């Protein structure tokens, strides 16, 4: 045991401080961290991401995981990959993080941003750690341009109220980045009136009585039968909607902030504009 530790310690001394070099063997252990790492890292420097990210239902960057090792968030499998940078998330098990740090691997943690400022800070910090600051700035510039374009399209007009509905009646309230995006595209998040906090459950009756003008249905594994998904197709909801069409947005677009949140906002605004044009004619 002591011998091992001594060996690792001497190895660390020889190889020098990890932050001085650009990482070449990156292991990411969290769904949102994976997304950001795959967006920023240089080609062929990512060795492994979490198994969830390889699933297109879970992650919009699943197509970038081809040929990568997939980990299940456990320290043992990560050590075997001999990484020079480990990126974890808030939900990576604490035991794994402590163990990897105690083995002197360079471990950084990426949190899910809750404000636009935090999105910027998170991408810049990760870009610095990966030695890819210019890529991070480029990504943020594109994101800013997309939101500026959305602002111009909205131009101060209001489109009424909206409820985001996930399986089992879960919805996104305030404080959350999604809620800020809704405000930015001229929508009132009705979940805030229903007092659900940042993420919570609403009953079908509450949805009917709150009468949102638009409904966004989070699409997630809709082809695998479950009672949870059945709540989204309850006849009460379908009849209430009547001619109002729901907007379906993949759940994975809303999870982590960043570019896919802009995609979700664009899709919602497209659907609302199409509907408005149809009602004007």
């Amino acid at each position, binding site marked *: 045991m002591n011998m091992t530790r001594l060996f690792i310690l001497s190895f660390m001394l020889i190889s020098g401080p990890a932050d001085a070099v650009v990482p070449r063997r990156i292991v990411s252990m969290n769904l949102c961290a994976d997304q950001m790492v795959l967006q920023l890292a240089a080609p062929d420097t990512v060795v492994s991401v979490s198994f969830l990210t390889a699933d297109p239902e879970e992650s919009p960057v699943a197509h970038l995981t081809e040929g990568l090792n997939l980990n299940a968030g456990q320290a043992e499998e990560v050590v075997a990959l001999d990484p020079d940078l480990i990126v974890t998330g808030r939900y990576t098990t604490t035991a794994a993080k402590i163990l990897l740090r105690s083995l002197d691997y360079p471990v950084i943690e990426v949190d899910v941003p809750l404000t636009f400022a935090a999105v910027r800070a998170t991408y810049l910090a990760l870009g610095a750690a990966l030695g890819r600051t210019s890529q991070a700035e480029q990504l943020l510039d594109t994101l800013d341009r997309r939101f500026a374009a959305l602002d111009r399209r909205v131009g101060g007009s209001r489109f009424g109220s909206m409820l985001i509905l996930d399986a089992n009646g879960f919805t996104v309230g305030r404080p959350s980045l999604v809620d800020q995006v809704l405000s930015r595209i001229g929508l009132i998040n009705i979940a805030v009136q229903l007092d659900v906090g940042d993420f919570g*459950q609403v009953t079908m009756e509450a949805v*009917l009585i709150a*009468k949102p003008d638009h409904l966004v249905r989070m699409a997630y594994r809709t082809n*695998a039968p*479950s009672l949870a*998904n059945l709540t989204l197709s*309850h006849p009460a909801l379908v009849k209430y909607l009547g001619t109002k069409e729901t907007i379906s947005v993949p759940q994975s677009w809303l999870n982590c902030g960043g570019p896919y949140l802009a995609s979700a906002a664009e899709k919602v605004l497209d659907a609302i504009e199409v509907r408005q044009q149809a009602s004007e004619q």
Partner: protein
Amino acid sequence: MSSAIFKVNSTGRGRPQAILLSVLAVMVVVLSVVSLFTGRLGFGGIADLLTLRAADPETFRILLIEIRLPRTFLALTVGATLGLSGAVLQGLLRNPLAEPFILGASSSAALGAVIVFYFGIAGGSALATPLGGVAGAMVATALLLSLGGRMQEPLTLILAGVAINALAAALTSLALNLAPSPYAALEIVFWILGSFADRSLEHVVFAVPLMVIGWVLLFSTWRCLDALTLGEDAAASLGFNLAAIKIRAILGCAFAVGAAVATTGVISFVGLVVPHILRPLVGYRPSRLLPSSMLGGAALMLAADIGVRLIDTQLELKIGVLTALIGTPFFFHLLLVIRRSGS
């Protein structure tokens, strides 16, 4: 056998029976109306709903017909199913502890329904799931009633039920963990504790006809149940074909309990408590217990379902929590009675 529980006397004929059934029927009607006007944490008391009707009649109509009505109607019919099945099984097996939950019929029905629903067998259609429940309940009931003849000691039969229950619950959990939907594993709570929340008229349309078939079959055993209080030999000598009666009871239980559980999950002890409370009021006649247990089961289930909506918990309480809290004291009481009369 426990003659204290199954003594037959000639009191409670005619008029008192009509009074009992009328009182129970009135309770069912009143509780149904209260259930329709009860929302989560009491929202939608009559005043709230009248305001909504005035302001927005279309939403009021959808809320009442598409959300509240299926819930109330299923509580009524599932309660009636469990009360009736309990009364028939207790009479047939001459065992006061017999009921669909304790004998494992409900858990087996849940297993059948879970396999059909989550793996999309037969397209996972709205009719296929209740039929899966029927198949599951049929296997368990047939097994128990075929064993029942050989098990003279009432507690032995209950132990067989415990074994079936454990196996069915384990397999249900396994099936849910293997199911393709990531939500499935979390939904075990619904299947083992039951709920009437967010059921739709579609559930009513497919489950209730199957339950009614079960009721007809279960009721067809009623004449024989009185004769069985004298023992199987005496009943046979009175001209009853016991094998045929048992088959009707198996099929009746399978259809009624299977369709009920496939729609609302396993709800425990209703079939135990209701016949037990009503037995003295029907003069200990097993045949008379059938209609009153049906109404009593419906009333108890409606009341319990109103209860889970009024208790302030973060997520709505599952209905099986309340029925188990009511049912287990009765179960212990009956165990003590059986021990006393057996020794």
